[in-house]
Structure formats: structure tokens, C-alpha cells
């Protein structure tokens, strides 16, 4: 006979396991299965095609993805680490402001960010053209596009990972360690390389792995900027568009293997004993910069960084004020007004994608919120056999590139099955909310895990000891305590769902086309102003969410990135 405790765990686990099996495990396996079908017959043909001489493009794309990702790691580190060091170790005028701005790239959804970069530094970009006109050159001095474009966008959007891990490691670093080293006779240089740097390495490794995974999965940047350049995530999309689902499945499997290998490596690395500080966190002490030369160099650097960091946001804002048809052959836009925003609110056709995105994001986030709490509770507070497996299952959607998740859903739900209640989901409204739900479940589970792990078991026990039944305790004690963490996770999932592009582009229908798809459409029609206005809506949403999180939920913006 099972005791009450075990029964409760079981009741909790059944829905969790069912949903994860149906919507994460089954689609993943379905893709794997499909990759071994060639024209419906089991075979290794697809893999032979992938690695063989017949389709060199695939192998080339895999190789491109890998080295682009490695370079992205390098560039992100080169920007993020020194910036974090300067902004967190030295005190100079404006330091606080600079360090707040440093994480601004997070406030730019990837598709919108890429778009801003295109109009800033691309062929017809404002900056190259401005320089050309200023210096009276006959050609633009530089332009980004193809590989350089992808790399620059990656460096811009991913350096915050390095910035944030370094900043938080620095603020947790016990300064007495450095002082001890100086006291023992080490000079500044030695102190940095022999004490500070080794203590920061675990953070660097984690950030490197993260950036590598994110750029392997990156879709928007290559989609808009790659030109003829091939990366694997994009190849999947092309195979799907060309109707070769089996090849798309094979490409997905290979991309997934790389990503999951990295996820496992990262779990292993973080699970190792690292040299976390034993002493209590002491607020970082910053050295005052007294040398005026150095001080103003730093301030200049800060101002410069702020300008570069905010240019995309500013560009977006400016472009959103350019009405349709007023910026065609001219080098610079000349007419500015609020037409695009007005259209948003009084033209149903323009408003519809926003409404679609909001509705679908709300549905997905409601699901993620409820389901995330229960899943996380089971994972953190309950013991059962196979817990590790469940943990990995929850994290799979986080490790898998969005394109792969999209493919998984296509392959799993383009025919009726029990998890779709006998319906074909592909081509319906519901496939996108489902995709968002799966994509952002790990985010909420992770942020909920973090607060639940903080919640001492004795709090629940105290409630029980005072006579409260499990569900009463859960409602009145556990939920209120963890609510801020869960909410901030959910809100973040919400804004990301509103801007989600890779799964949307694979799964949307005319009826539920979301903002990101409409941005694409508008760009195709060279209606840049309207596209930017859509982007501004997302930026505003993200800003509001971050404000709420930091103001009412007490969660720092850095933390909510997960």
C-alpha cells in the first residue's frame, strides 16, 4: 500500500509525465524516427546524403554553424569580460548608468535587433552612408552582411551573457583574497592572473557554453543576413520549405545532437565541485579611479559604449516614425510622423498580428505558469525514481534549437495522434501556442526551481505541523512565497513568446500569423516603418516587464534572463 506522501507524489507526477511525454518526448522521437525514413522506407539514406559527397551543402552548413559559434563565443567574451571588469571594479562618474545600459541588448528581440542592425550598418545602412557623405567618399566605407553581419549581431546580442556572469562573479568575489595575495607580495598583474582570473573561470566556461549553444541555434540573424551563406538551422528551414521533411528531420537530429551534447557537458561542468566562495558575500568594493587621464578615458569609453549599445534602439524608434512610401530612393528618410502607430490601432489588418501574438502568448504562458509550478515542485520537493530523467526531459526544449522544436512539432502533429486528441494540429491555430508553451516551459521551470530551492523544507513542515493539509499548505504557504520568482519567469516567457520567430515561421497559418511574421512581410514590401513600429511594441512590452519585475517582484533584470 502506498502511504499518503507517495500517493500525492504520484498524483502530481502523472500529468507532468503525460504532458512531457506527449509534447516533448514523443515529437523528439518522432523526428528521430522520421530521419531514418527515405521516401517512407526505413534506411540510412538521409544520413548518407548529409555526410556524403552528394549534398556537400549540409556538411558545409554544419561546419559553418560550428565555427560561427566559436567566433561568437570569442567576440562576446572579448566585449563582455573587459566591460564587466571596468564597470564593476572601478568607480568613476556615470559608472552606475553605464552598467545599467550594458545589458540593454536583452531588451531587443532577436528578429527586431537584426532588423535594426541591417538598417544601421547594412548596404543601405544609415551609418555607412552618413560616413560616406561626411567624408565625401564615392562608396560606403563598410557594410555588414553575410558572415560579418551574423558575427556582429551575435556579439552584440550575446555578450551580455559574459557581462552578467563576470559581473556577478566579481561581486561575489571575496576581496580579502586579493588583498591576501597582495599582502603575500604579489603585484597587481600576478594578483589578477593567479587569483582573480582562476576564480572567474567557472563563470567563463558556463557563459561560453551558453553562447555557443545560442549561436548554434540562432535563426533570425542568418535568416536576414546570411545571403548565400549556409548554416544548419537555416538548412532545416529550407528543407522544410522544399517539402523534404525527412531531410529536415535528419538535419534536426544532427543539430540536436550537438546541442544536447553541450547541455550535458554544461550540466556535468556545473555539477562538479567548483570553488564557490565560502565566506559571506561582501558587496563588491570598487577602486576609486583618481588619475584624471584614466578616469576620463573610462568615462569616454562608457559614453562610447552607451552610444553603440543604444543605437539599434534609437534606429528602431526613428524608423518606426517613417510612414509608408516616403523612404524609397532617398539615402535618408525625410518624413516623420506617427502614422505607423496610428495604423496599428485603427487598421484591423495591421493590428491583427499583434492581437494574435498577445492571445497566443497569453495562452502559452497560462499553461507554462500552471504546469511550470507543478513540474518544478515535483522536481525540487519530491523524491521519486527517474527524477533525473524527468529533469532532463524538462530541459530538452531549452537545449534544442527553436527550429528543431518547430520541426518536431510538424512531424509529430501533421497526423492525428492521442496527444492531439485525434486532430491534425499543424495548420491550426493551436499549434503555435503549443510551440510557445514547449519553448518557454524550461524558462519558467528554471526560475521556479531557483525560488523553490531557496524555500526550506521546514517551512512546509511547520505548516503541516500546525495542522494544515498538503493542498492548503501549498496554496497558502508555498505559492505566495514562490510567486514573485514564478511570475518574473512567466512574464519573461510572455515577452519572448510575443516576439518568437523561428517556430512561428515554421508553423504559422494565415489565421494566426504573429508579429514576427508580419514584420517579415512588411520588410518584404519595403514598408520598413511599419516593421519598426511592430518592433517598438515588443521593446515597450519588454521594458514594462522588466520594470515590473525589478520594481514589484524584486528580481533583477540580469537574473530574469535565466
Amino acid at each position, binding site marked *: 500500500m502506498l502511504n499518503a506522501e507517495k500517493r500525492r507524489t504520484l498524483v502530481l507526477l502523472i500529468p507532468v509525465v503525460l504532458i512531457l511525454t506527449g509534447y516533448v518526448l514523443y515529437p523528439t522521437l518522432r523526428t528521430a524516427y522520421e530521419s531514418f525514413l527515405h521516401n517512407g522506407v526505413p534506411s540510412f539514406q538521409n544520413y548518407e546524403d548529409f555526410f556524403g559527397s552528394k549534398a556537400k551543402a549540409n556538411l558545409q552548413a554544419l561546419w559553418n554553424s560550428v565555427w560561427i559559434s566559436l567566433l561568437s563565443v570569442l567576440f562576446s567574451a572579448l566585449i563582455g569580460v573587459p566591460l564587466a571588469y571596468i564597470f564593476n571594479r572601478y568607480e568613476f562618474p556615470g559608472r552606475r548608468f553605464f552598467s545599467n545600459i550594458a545589458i540593454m541588448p536583452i531588451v531587443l528581440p532577436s528578429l527586431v535587433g537584426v532588423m535594426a542592425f541591417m538598417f544601421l550598418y547594412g548596404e543601405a545602412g544609415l551609418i555607412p552612408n552618413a560616413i560616406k557623405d561626411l567624408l565625401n567618399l564615392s562608396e560606403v566605407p563598410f557594410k555588414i552582411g553575410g558572415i560579418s553581419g551574423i558575427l556582429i549581431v551575435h556579439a552584440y546580442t550575446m555578450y551580455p551573457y559574459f557581462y552578467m556572469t563576470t559581473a556577478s562573479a566579481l561581486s561575489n568575489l571575496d576581496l580579502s583574497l586579493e588583498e591576501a595575495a597582495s599582502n603575500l607580495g604579489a603585484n597587481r598583474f600576478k594578483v589578477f592572473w593567479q587569483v582573480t582570473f582562476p576564480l572567474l573561470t567557472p563563470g567563463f566556461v558556463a557563459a561560453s557554453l551558453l553562447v555557443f549553444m545560442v549561436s548554434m541555434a540562432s535563426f533570425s540573424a542568418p535568416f536576414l543576413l546570411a545571403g548565400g551563406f549556409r548554416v544548419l538551422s537555416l538548412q532545416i528551414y529550407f528543407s522544410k520549405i522544399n517539402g523534404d521533411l525527412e531531410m529536415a528531420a535528419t538535419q534536426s537530429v544532427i543539430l540536436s545532437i550537438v546541442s544536447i551534447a553541450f547541455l550535458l557537458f554544461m550540466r556535468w561542468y556545473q555539477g562538479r565541485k567548483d570553488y564557490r566562495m565560502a565566506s559571506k558575500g561582501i558587496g563588491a568594493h570598487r577602486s576609486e579611479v583618481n588619475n584624471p587621464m584614466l578616469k576620463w578615458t573610462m568615462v569616454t569609453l562608457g559614453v562610447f559604449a552607451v552610444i553603440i549599445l543604444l543605437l539599434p534602439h534609437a534606429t528602431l524608434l526613428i524608423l518606426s516614425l517613417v510612414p509608408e512610401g516616403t523612404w524609397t530612393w532617398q539615402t535618408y528618410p525625410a518624413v516623420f510622423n506617427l502614422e505607423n502607430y496610428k495604423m496599428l490601432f485603427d487598421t484591423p489588418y495591421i493590428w491583427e498580428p499583434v492581437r494574435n501574438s498577445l492571445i497566443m502568448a497569453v495562452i502559452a504562458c497560462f499553461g507554462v505558469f500552471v504546469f511550470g509550478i507543478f513540474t518544478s515542485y515535483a522536481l525540487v520537493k519530491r523524491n521519486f525514481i527517474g527524477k533525473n530523467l524527468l529533469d532532463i526531459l524538462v530541459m530538452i526544449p531549452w537545449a534544442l534549437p527553436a527550429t528543431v522544436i518547430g520541426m518536431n512539432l510538424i512531424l509529430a502533429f501533421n497526423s492525428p495522434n492521442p496527444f492531439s486528441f485525434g486532430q491534425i494540429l499543424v495548420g491550426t491555430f493551436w499549434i503555435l501556442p503549443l510551440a510557445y508553451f514547449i519553448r518557454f516551459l524550461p524558462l519558467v521551470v528554471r526560475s521556479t526551481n531557483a525560488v523553490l530551492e531557496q524555500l526550506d523544507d521546514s517551512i512546509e513542515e511547520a505548516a503541516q505541523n500546525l*495542522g*494544515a493539509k498538503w493542498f492548503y499548505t501549498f496554496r497558502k504557504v508555498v505559492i505566495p512565497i514562490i510567486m514573485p520568482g514564478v511570475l518574473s519567469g512567466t512574464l519573461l516567457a510572455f515577452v519572448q513568446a510575443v516576439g518568437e520567430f523561428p517556430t512561428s515561421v515554421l508553423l504559422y497559418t494565415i489565421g494566426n500569423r504573429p508579429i514576427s511574421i508580419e514584420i517579415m512581410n512588411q520588410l518584404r514590401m519595403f514598408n520598413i516603418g511599419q516593421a519598426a513600429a511592430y518592433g517598438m511594441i515588443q521593446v515597450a512590452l519588454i521594458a514594462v516587464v522588466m520594470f515590473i519585475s525589478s520594481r514589484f517582484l524584486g528580481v533583477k533584470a540580469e537574473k530574469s534572463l535565466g
Partner: protein
Amino acid sequence: MSTVHLSAITKQFGKVTAVEDLDLLIKEGEFFTFLGPSGCGKTTTLRMVAGFYYPTKGVVKFNDRVMTTVPPEKRNTGMVFQNYALFPHMTVFENVAFGLKVRKMSKEETKKRVEDVLRKVRLDQYAERQVSQLSGGQQQRVALARALVIEPDILLLDEPLSNLDARLRDEMRAEILRLQKEYKITTIYVTHDQVEALTMSDRIAVFNSGKCQQVGTPTEIYNEPVNDFVAEFIGETNLLGVSEAGLGENHRLYHVDALGSKVKVNNTSLNVAGYTENDELRLSVRPEAIEVSAQPVAGENVFPGKVKLVQFTGAAVHTYVEMNDRLTLVGTALNQGPSTYLKEGAEVYVRLPEDQIRIVPKAGV
């Protein structure tokens, strides 16, 4: 109010046996303490009483009701957790009222009772504070009030004072005792601080590696330990390996290996603990019982030695006497002024009074 009866309790976590074959009867209204070194199974036992663990074997009874597998919320015990476990999102009042709310008590009655208990723990001024704004001692009293307000049959306290500084600890000890007497509530108190155990308890159970070694009043535990573990764990003592060497009229003789000679011990139950033929034996003599003197002393059990170290601690003076290269004894005397301190290196005589010695068996493992 209620008795607690644990019979033949064993608790295993996988392969680890945390508590083994435990029998205890805790009386109504008693202040009962679990004492023992870290990891000996005190918390585990307490949690079986509270219902957070169910025993692997054995029966838990409150009065005559079998409670072995009753869930914690139906046991009506009041527990004070080591980290207090206050609900961080509630005020002091709401924390204390929680148990009453669960019991669906009316608003007025709840208010009356909470105010009542808050007055008793002297926190009536703080009812509307958030618990995070309280000092450690105040939080502790909220935890106590929260446990007491539901009028539990049994009050359970797991090292409630270990997070407090020395002064506050003294204060809270008095507070807990006062409330316990006032509510006349059966109380189980877990600690590894022997002073706390000796000063507060009606009775103490001494644990070691999952087994209860001895149950008794503080004086019994201190003066009549049943084995060398208890003798050594409670207070200071000198322990010497001995073997039986004969029986006199009113005394027994034991051979002390390290001294190479015999000592005489009164043949009473106060001086000789129960043991069997197969037991290894130890002689325990407390430092305050040992007489150290520069002049030859009359009487039995006098041995010569050399002063190795004199340690001054304020109220008492410890004298370490080297008897031979295998044995050093410690004697403690109250401070009587500098003229009475012995010189290091001085030849002295040590007497082990036959009425103060206790012969105990070595504890089984």
C-alpha cells in the same frame, strides 16, 4: 497533554540506520531532552514523533492512541524548528494565527488567543511586523508562540537555541522553561549542549550512533553513567582501563593497567555500574573528585606523579599530573588564591577517593 511512548523504534534511510531499537516512555507534562553528539539520531527521533518520518519498525503512541503512521497535520504537536521556519510572507500575527485558521476558529477567538500568547512571549508590541524585521531572539519567540497557540499535546523543540548568542540563549532558556511550566505541556527538547540539557530537563535520554545509551534525571546521568560513553560525553572525566582484581567486604578491587597497580572502590551501585563478565571495564573519576597534594596523603588509592601543567580558568584550576609516560590525570579544584597553585614539575600525590570512583562497562558499538 499526553504521554509519548516509543517502542522498539528503528528508522533506516536506505542502508543507514539512523535510530535503532529505541524504547522510550515520556511522561505527561515532562520536560524531556534528547542529548547526543551530531548525527546520533536525535532529530530523526523527534521527526518520527512529529510525523515527518514514519519508523521502519516499531510503534509510536500518544497516550494509548497508536500514531505510528498518522500524518503530521493530524497529530496536534507543536514544533519549534531549528531555523524557526517562520512564514516569510506573513506578519507576526498571521504566523501565530496560522494554526488556528487551519482549525477554522472564529476571527474573534483567534484574535483573542493570538494576542494572549503574544503577550506571554512579550511580543504584543510586534504583532503587525513582518517577521523579517525581527531579531533572532524575537523570531524564536514567534516560533514558540506559533507552536503554543494551538495548545498542542506535545511541544517539540529541535535545537531551538543553537542560532543565538550566549546571553540571548540564557534568556530564552528561562523563557522556554517558564512557558513550559505555565502550559504544563509535555515537551521534547533536542540539544547537543550538555549544560542546556542538565539545567533544563526533568529527564534526559543520551544517544550515541542511533542508540539510546541511558535515560535518567540530570543527576543520575552525571553521577551514575551506565557506560564510558555517557561518563565521557556528560561533563569531564578521567577514564582508565581496568580489570576485576578481587572482592572485599565493602569494596571491590580493580587493577589499573596504566598505573600497574590496584585501586579500591566502594561496593555500592553508585560506584559500580551494572556489567557482565564479557564487558571491558573502565574506571571513571571526575576531575573535581581527584585530590592533588604536594604532601603525602593518607588513605587508599594514593599514587605519586609530577605536575605537567597548571591551567587557570577563573573559578577553577585544572592540574594535569603525569603519573607515568602512559597516563596523565586531571584534577580540578576551586580557585583558592595563588598560594594554593602547584608548581609545574613538582612531585605530588594524587588520591582517587574510593567513594567517588565509578566503574563502567565500555559502550558497545
